């Protein structure tokens, strides 16, 4: 099952496999900036999630859509803030630096999730897999097949993943600012009577 994607500028539909082990990555088919916004929204809207509108809920929705078990991890990654690791056993790890605060950790995880949904992970990810395995001893190097690191934004895929993270944060923030849905009909009527703003 692939996530909904908008058509690339050349008019060709990207054929992204459901299986991350066999996904092919063609960097030349990246969409241009003007279309990234729509592309990001299309991907976010295709994921099934809802109240209480948390990042973890969205990650679970992506995992269900891609048939992947997605975990979040924290470790000391040095000067790199985050990594995406994909293993042979259909597991993905969104790794963030252990010195990151909760908002930073969420942002890094969202960035790595952006790499995952676009299939940006490669066999080296900027670091040899054995080096990654030394950073994450709980994951066997034999199992690691793909990785992507969060570095600078001169790379279009990094820039797109970062835009995805900002957009996802804005959507989550927008939803969380809304009042929770009324649990009962009585609660809805109470709001309608006592508060014009929330009705």
């Amino acid at each position, binding site marked *: 099952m692939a996530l909904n994607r908008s058509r690339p500028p050349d008019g060709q539909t990207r054929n992204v496999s459901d299986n991350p082990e066999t996904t092919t990555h063609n960097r030349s088919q990246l969409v241009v900036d003007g279309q990234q916004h729509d592309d990001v929204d299309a991907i976010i809207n295709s994921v099934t999630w809802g109240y209480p509108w948390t990042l973890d809920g969205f990650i679970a929705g992506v995992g269900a859509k891609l048939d992947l078990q997605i975990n979040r991890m924290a470790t000391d990654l040095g000067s790199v*803030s985050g990594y995406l690791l994909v293993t042979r056993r259909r597991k993905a790890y969104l790794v963030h*630096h252990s*010195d990151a*605060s909760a908002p930073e950790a969420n942002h890094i995880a969202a960035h790595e999730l952006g790499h995952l949904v676009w299939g940006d992970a490669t066999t080296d990810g900027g670091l040899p897999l054995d080096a990654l395995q030394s950073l994450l001893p709980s994951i066997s190097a034999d199992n690691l097949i793909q990785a992507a690191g969060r570095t600078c934004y001169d790379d279009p895929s990094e820039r797109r993943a970062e*835009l995805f993270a900002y*957009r996802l944060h804005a959507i989550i923030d927008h939803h969380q600012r809304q009042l929770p849905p009324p*649990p*009962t009909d009585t609660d809805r009527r*109470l709001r309608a009577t*006592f508060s014009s703003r929330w009705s």
Partner: protein
Amino acid sequence: MTVSILGYLACVVTLVAAATRVLDRHYTHRAGRQYLTAGQVCSALAVASWTHDSRRVAIQLHWPARLPFLTGNVLAMLAGFCLVATLAYTVGRTDHAARRTAAHGAGVAACCATSTTLALTGSTITGLLAQMIPPCYVAWCYARFAAGLIARSREPGTHLIMRLSLHTTTISACTRVGWAICQGSLVVIAALHDTTITAEPKVSELVAATAVSLGAIGTTLATWTPRVLANLEKRRISRAYRGIQPLWAVLTAARPDVVLADRPDHILGQDNSSDAVLDQLYQMVIEIGDARRKLRPYIDPAVTSHFETIVTSLHLFGRSAATFIQAAELACSLARHQEGAEPLVHRLPARPSPNHTSALAQARWLARIGHHLLNSPTILALYRPVTPTRPSSSPAFGDQVAANGTEGSTYGPDESARIR
């Protein structure tokens, strides 16, 4: 006179609350809300009618002396009916609400007619009966209203502000029940002593004014509290945004690669200016975090250990001490990075970040670090970010600390001027 002023004040507050509800641009015509508004108007006018000055005005106008009192009683009963109707449309079964409201309407009409007729007969006994009917009916209505609200406010899932609104309204209804009991007791006492109550006691006026005011606050709490909280948050965001900007400028000047330049404005999709500032604040927090992480290998561990030992002598404790040490580390790494030094092999282990749950909280923390970084003479001895007029000399940080002596948690205008 004071009690009358309080009564009029409660009347004005309640009328304003009712008008606010009607004039609100989000107003929608719902039966429950309309009955609530009508009940508030009746309550406000009842309280104004009961005041001593209203009676004096009626006498001066050669009206019957008991007219304001009777008018107040009728209005109080109408207010009670409106609240019971509000309850029926808000928490009761919708299909039964109209029928129940009609039945209550017949009941209140009968009560008003009986009370007024008995009051106008002139007999002492009928006059006392006429005075007993309104408090009894009002007590029944408000007790029912309070019971309905208490039951609903206990339901799980009710929002905190909504619950607060319901609790305040319930207290108002209970106060009104207290007023009714007080009134009924006065009538009984008057009957026992064979006298007639013609004037509203001051305590009763005060209780009624309090109940009406609490009702006005409680029923509008859920409307204006979110707006007040939003405005307060907007101010906090603006302050944090201003506070974080200097640190962001310094760090992104050193590490421009962390900045996501030319971000499409519509990527965040916010049309509210406050949200736009918050989104910019969030991006700055993320970029500062990235820059700090990239500069971390340049931190000399000796600087950290040195500043950890001297913060006490600088009279810095707790949050100030932590932010001061982090500012010192940052100054050290910036200085080494600026000099083109190689990253240190033995870098510091990752330091767990303070438990910031939001970007705003983290921005306030970072603003403190920026304040130390750009204002502390001790830290400026390590790294001087802006030196257009005075080239900085960078002596060994230990010597400079010794030369500066002690250091306060805030820095004087002279220090700020030196930076600029």
